[in-house]
């Protein structure tokens, strides 16, 4: 299990580091919202899910896409705006999708995928499927009316959904305290009539364990939403490849305890060095290969501008 977790964590971290490195070359001509420091949430949740389960995420979606098994080559190609990208170069980093493995799409408008996830879960229930949906969103999305409406609907209809609030304390540069009188997101969810808990410490194993329990309960017939507020921290700037502790809205000292909770390091330390090396080598090879794939892929044809507006009969 640790190997599997480590591979996923390490892979996400390294992919994003490579994105940050390559970003200065302007080959990726679109905004990137990195998850570095927050990988544990996506990995912990997705390890508790199966291939037939479904996730919906946000513009900060690289980690989720990869953790759920999204195709790495198609993701990098998408960032490069290539025709081989998971959205044919039309979506970019903020609109990743890989329906083969249940990554159902991300959105650049905060909060918009929460009701989509709820609707998907409603359909699963109606059709008697045994899958669950996980809906990822940030602490900022909690401010939006659609959060409230979606919680209410999910609790009312007892749908098979896991809500995952990645609370990294910030919406862009605004601290949660500047947007919410009480910092009690899990409680806000509970009041709609669903189990809700806060998971501290950015702890991938704990997240996995708690979510796994929720998923199993749902699968064994105890339908209805579960809510997890996962405390984590964004190491990089809101958007872009750099750190931003000099910007003034937060201090490096605030981040430091979170650097110590680095789950890549933690899980890596659990492994024996050889196994670890092997994983890392494989991942590095895969990443190299994915970037090469992206580099060598063609841009979309001009006519592609006009395709994909409607599905033809």
């Amino acid at each position: 299990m640790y190997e599997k977790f480590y591979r996923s964590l390490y892979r996400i971290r390294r992919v994003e580091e490579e994105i940050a490195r390559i970003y200065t070359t302007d080959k990726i001509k679109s905004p990137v919202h990195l998850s570095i420091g927050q990988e544990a949430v996506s990995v912990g949740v997705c390890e508790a899910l199966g291939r037939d389960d479904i996730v919906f995420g946000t513009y900060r979606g690289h980690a989720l896409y990869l953790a759920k098994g999204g195709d790495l080559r198609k993701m990098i190609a998408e960032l490069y705006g290539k025709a081989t990208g998971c959205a044919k170069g039309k979506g970019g980093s903020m609109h990743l999708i890989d329906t083969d493995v249940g990554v159902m799409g991300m959105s650049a408008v905060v909060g918009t995928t929460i009701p989509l996830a709820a609707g998907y879960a409603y359909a699963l229930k109606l059709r008697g499927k045994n899958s669950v949906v996980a809906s990822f969103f940030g602490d900022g999305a909690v401010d939006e009316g659609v959060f409230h409406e979606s919680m209410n609907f999910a609790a009312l209809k007892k749908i098979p959904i896991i809500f995952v609030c990645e609370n990294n304390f910030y919406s862009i540069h605004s601290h949660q305290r500047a947007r919410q009188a009480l910092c009690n997101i899990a409680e806000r969810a509970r009041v709609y009539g669903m189990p809700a808990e806060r998971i501290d410490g950015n702890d991938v194993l704990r997240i996995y364990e708690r979510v796994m329990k929720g998923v199993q309960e749902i699968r064994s017939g105890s339908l209805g939403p579960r809510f997890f507020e996962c405390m984590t921290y964004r190491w990089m700037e809101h958007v872009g490849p750099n750190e931003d502790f000099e910007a003034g809205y937060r201090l490096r000292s605030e981040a430091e305890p979170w650097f110590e909770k680095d789950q890549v390091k933690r899980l890596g330390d659990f492994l024996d060095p050889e196994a670890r090396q092997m994983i890392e080598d494989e991942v590095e090879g895969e990443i190299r290969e994915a970037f090469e794939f992206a580099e060598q892929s063609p841009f979309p044809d001009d006519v592609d501008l006009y395709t994909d507006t409607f599905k033809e009969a």
Partner: protein
Amino acid sequence: MERILTYAEAIREATEQEMARDPTVILLGIGVDDFKAIYGTTKGLIEKFGPERVFDTPLSEDAMTGVAIGAALAGLRPIHVHIRMDFVLLAMNQLVNIAAKGRYMYGGAVSVPIVVRAIIGRSWGQGAQHSQSLHSYFIHVPGLKVVAPSTPYDAKGCLIKSIRDDNPVMFIEHRMIHYQKGHVPESTYTIPFGKARVLAKGDDITLVGISYMAVECLRAQKLLTEVGISAEVIDPVSLNPFDLDAIAGSVRKTGRLLVVDTAWVTCGVSAEVVAQLTERFQDSQQIRVQRMGFKPVTCPTTKNLEDLFYPNSQKIASAAYTLVHNNRKFWTPTHVEPPEIMEFRGPF
């Protein structure tokens, strides 16, 4: 023997038949399951298909639109009903940013087969916030199909087509058309999108009526025959895609066009029709055009101002007369309040 149904009954029948045929079709919206049954259009459906496929929703237009879209992503075909189009303003983000764009921004990986039934309110002092016709909003943004049939026959066929379409379709109904009666076959059939319907043949002027205004144009056409004017009446039926060819063909013959919308004129469908026809005819033929719609103010409640606010058959006939006589002669028929407005005691 003609089988006569009202427009509302035609909608109900289309829904029932498609729900029976296809278990993935679901119906949701505030009040779809109550005894008023959205003006009767959803009557009996919860009894027949059960509360999982037919359900009332919380007052959450934004999220419920997202829920419909999400369910569509999972393979269902939701029909989401709004008893007033005004409330759709709460769902614009989901409709414009997700439904319209989903397929494109995910490079064709998904499709969003939802139908949004948006009903335009009118009469009995519905006033500022229960009377809006915002269809131009949905036409402006690529990715949504928009239909606004005016006859019971087209209502049934268009709704079935909308449900079977793999894309988001805005299905625009006008409260005052729900009472229209007409022939509706019992069998299921579809009306193709993008084909206008000629409701009356004529030579002197082309009247294009959007939604309920097609009915008023037909009434105007009858009034005009009394003064020797032969008007062709066209109902575009579908607003996106739009059958400009049909209108262009008619205007080529008549040389004159009056577009009547059940909405404001500015940046509305009537502007688009006039702009497209102008672009098309500028090299070949001189045509005369005019637009008619809501007066450029908020809808008032009191009846005498409401009467001034809305286009009607009298105003249409009068404007057509003037257009045909090149602004040189004027005539106004006496106004007869149509039964649907005279008898309505809304809001339900």
